[in-house]
């Protein structure tokens, strides 16, 4: 129940930030991909099942907020949640470099997919590439900083160390 409440709260907060504070930046061409960020954080924390579920629910909500292409955010974020969740138990999740790489890759994948649909193809690939890379370069360091601040504020990391050693052995 606590996890479900957390899921709803985080999803609502992400959608809210996206349509208010970050929409001002988006209108100036700088997209802080808050949807990819929270999906990565959730999947890192809870693994692939909850990661993909969170990504899917958040994606459907974001799709409903936009006027076109119902399902595009849902597809990308469900896969991001699954992929990151799948990797989460094999990585040192508290490591800023790991977080940076995951956030960068997730933002790149999410934005590339969304923009290709929005622009109707890859004809404007220069614009697309520029936007996607800028979005990744903004979201990843900002995300790492936010996670570090949360860690400092709460006194402990959101994530425990990777648990390869916990994998089943025979």
């Amino acid at each position, binding site marked *: 129940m606590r996890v479900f409440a957390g899921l709803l709260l985080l999803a*609502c907060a992400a*959608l*809210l*930030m996206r*349509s*208010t*504070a970050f*929409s*001002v*930046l*988006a*209108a*100036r*061409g700088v*997209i802080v991909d808050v949807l990819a960020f929270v999906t990565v954080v959730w999947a890192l924390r809870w*693994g*692939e*099942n909850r990661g*993909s*579920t969170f990504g*899917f629910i958040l*994606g459907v*909500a974001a*799709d*409903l*907020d*936009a*006027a*076109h*292409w*119902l*399902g*595009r955010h*849902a*597809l990308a974020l*469900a*896969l991001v949640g*699954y992929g990151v*969740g*799948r*990797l989460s*138990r*094999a990585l040192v999740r508290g490591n800023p470099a790991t977080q940076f790489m995951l956030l960068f890759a997730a933002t790149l994948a999410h*934005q590339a997919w969304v*923009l290709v649909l*929005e*622009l*109707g*193809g890859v*004809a*404007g690939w*220069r*614009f697309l590439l520029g*936007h996607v890379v800028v979005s990744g370069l903004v979201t990843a360091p900002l995300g790492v900083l936010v996670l570090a601040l949360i860690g400092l504020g709460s006194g402990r990391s959101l994530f425990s160390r990777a648990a*390869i050693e*916990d*994998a*089943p*052995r*025979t």
Partner: protein
Amino acid sequence: MAAASGVQPPPLGNEGWPLKRGGRTPAGRLMGGFLPPAERRSGVLVGLYVTIALLLLLIGDRIPQAGLRGVGAWLFAPFDRLVLVVDRAGAAWRENERLHERITRLELDAIRLRQAGVENLRLRDSLGLPAYRALTLRPAEVLALAGEPVPTSATLSAGALQGVKVGDAVVTSDGLVGRIGEVYAGLSRVILLTDPNSAVACEVESTGVQGVLRFSASPRPQLLLTGVPMADTVRVGQLVLTSGLSLRYPRGLPVGRVERFARDLNGLTHEIEVAPAVSRSRLRHAYVVPGPVLPGAPDAEVGR
């Protein structure tokens, strides 16, 4: 023990996980063998989500989404307002100073224009032309913007209760923002000029050159004034206004300025890029202008 009973234990991979037939872990077959085993039913779950998402992509446009969006807008409106209070409190002080200066300048302009208006009315009357319709403005707050990389819609804090109707024009002091696409009880949704389905009949200031303003997302997001014959003269910097040919929008609302132009692919018409008059990044307040009562379909605007 196992060897003694004749049962061989399964061979172990590099990480100590049991290998399945073929010598690799299930995850290893996909991801090079460095991942721990997947959670139970994770493949089924993600497969289900991908299938639903693909179905939504294929048939999503046929699902009535307006009701769902209305509920979402209603749920989020109080939070939107809360976040915006913090965002706007800082900007309000600076904006207040700027607005005071602007009001003074505009009041001086208004005196001059009032005299010109009286003269204009007299001249129009003598020519037998109808008088211009004064605009009724209903103020509303812009609660949220949606769409990336360019916002395509916005949520307004005025709805059916405030008399807002589908098709009404939305303006700011800078110019045209878009038109109302969906109306809920106390909220409404504006389709911005940057929506790919939006089309506005426009004319270029003073020359009266006519064209249709559309948004093009490819090769990069831009507002284009299309359908302007090559024979017509257009200059960079000229103002683009809504034209009298538009059934939906009042005439003379600023839309943007000519930024650059080129030949279209057919070589028959200009393709004019227009810099929008309204900055979407500073969209805080807007005014709803009631549209004219149209005979027939509410979507008669398309293509005009």
